[in-house]
């Protein structure tokens, strides 16, 4: 039961956090596109740490996700492209991948996590 409570808390934090991720990605994309590469690459480092936590949170709560199960492997090909773009200092591609590939997935995950959050809330009533 305690474990369930913990997972509920993790889901709550993940929902809150994924909102920040979506906003954060938007800011980074804007910085890359408007020529502020230094600022964008600095914020990228924070985003990577945040995403790492998010993936762990999602993985650790997969048994309570039910129909809204999130397959985190969906981001693997994007991550490898992001890494390659970063190595090439291809900030145009980096911005593209964040905006057009990663953002839709994050938005989808956000919806799923919100459903899971609601289901867990209802179950606890």
């Amino acid at each position, binding site marked *: 039961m305690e474990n369930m409570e913990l997972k509920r808390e993790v889901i709550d934090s993940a929902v809150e956090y994924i909102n920040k991720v979506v906003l954060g990605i938007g800011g980074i994309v804007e910085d890359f596109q*408007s*020529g502020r590469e230094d600022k964008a690459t600095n914020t990228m480092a924070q985003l990577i740490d945040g995403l790492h936590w998010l993936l762990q949170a999602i993985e650790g709560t997969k048994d309570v996700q039910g129909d809204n199960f999130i397959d985190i492997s969906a981001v693997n090909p994007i991550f490898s492209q992001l890494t390659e773009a970063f*190595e090439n200092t291809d*900030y*145009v591609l980096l911005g593209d991948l964040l905006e057009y590939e990663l953002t839709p997935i994050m938005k989808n995950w956000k919806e799923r996590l919100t459903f899971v959050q609601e289901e867990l809330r209802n179950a606890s009533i």
Partner: protein
Amino acid sequence: MPVFDKNIEALRKRYPFIVEEVMEIEPDPSKYQVETASSGLKTLRVVQDLQFDSIKFYMHSKYNPVSEAENFAKEQYKIETVVHILYGFGMGYHINEICRLMKPESKLYILENNINVFHKAIEERDLTDIFTNPGIELIISGDAGKIANSVKSLINDGINFIIHPASLKAIPSENEYFRFVMENWNIKKSISEDYLKLIDDNLKSNLQGVNPNVGVFFEKFKGIPVVIVSTGPSLDKNIDLLKEVKGKVLIFAVGSALRPLLVRNIVPDLFIIIDPKKETLNQIKGFEDIEIPMIYLSSIYPGTVSSYKGPKFIACYEKGQLTTGKDNYLIDPGGSVSTAALDIAIKMGCSTIILVGQDLAFIDGKNHAKHGTDLDINTPELKSMRRVRGQNGEMLFTTLGLLSYKYWIEKRIEKENRQFINASEGGAIINGMKHIKLKDVITDYLKESFNIKQRIKTILEESGNAHVQE
């Protein structure tokens, strides 16, 4: 009429010399790859060869280049400024967006050094609007010197300089110095206001002090060699040899070299600190009483000045900072502590100037010698980092900052008639210097002994500095 011909026709009217250059080349399709973006528009991917591998990057978004260009123009173009200089033509999307923001009196100079990129742009997009726009002037050439000459006359205080970052990367590698100048310009523009305020506050406090000016050392060391000790990673290899040189050479340490030297009981003759940040306090921590002269730049953290108990000399870099009115006391810091030390050593009249630990590059993933910084001395080496040719012909990883110091040093010593020796065992080649191992420098160049202590003592007495070295 094909778009290329249409563009060439428009271009020829105002820029026949650019047409000439364009017609001379045919871009290699494996290095300049045109792709169609999801929006149906064309983008360009550039493959650039490095020494052992290559990097590839897009000039514009492969999804929506117009929306990207809108963001760029909105952020970079200052409507209230009349004259703008833009580096980077790319495929011209960002220029189309800037044109929308221009007023009738606005003037936009566009620089581009990669004729291949420009060639691709005029093959793929109708750019006649840009070529015929009376507010726009193109300065496009594969010859970086030509661009530099044209730009010189344009640079005034009122202009806004814009860099299209992807175009900067596409500057051909043979024009590395030109790329550096463009990039450096961009960085200077982005110095934060916080940093400027920090410098301003430090100046206010330090200029109230009563310490004598470093100018009292100038011309007092004629005929005496100096070794400037910096803390690049190679210092670990030859620092112990400095035990043998005491009294044969003036040992001039940068602040971060104090600890590595003093833990080996090598006491330098003087040292210098220039960084405005509080962290410089750590460089003298535990050594506040060493009683050797400290030279400090007028903009350093004032707490470091007050903590040091030995004799102190201020170095000023702008006329307004001088209280004596002696313009010849000014120094040119050159951006780093070791470049400032070099400028001062030259002004002190030293006959032979020897550098150690001046790597200007990372060696085996290290950025500093042991004890040379409070921060991590390991730097992960990434493919995307800048490179510089090493003393053994190898390519070493470096940073834009370190590269700027290398160029500064090379320019600074160009017209100085004396010996410059880079005795750093590793690191970048410094043009204009002899590269000799410290062991051999000691045998071949440091044969005489000097009473350096006495010379410094006399200077301290004459300058009225209360602390007299015994």
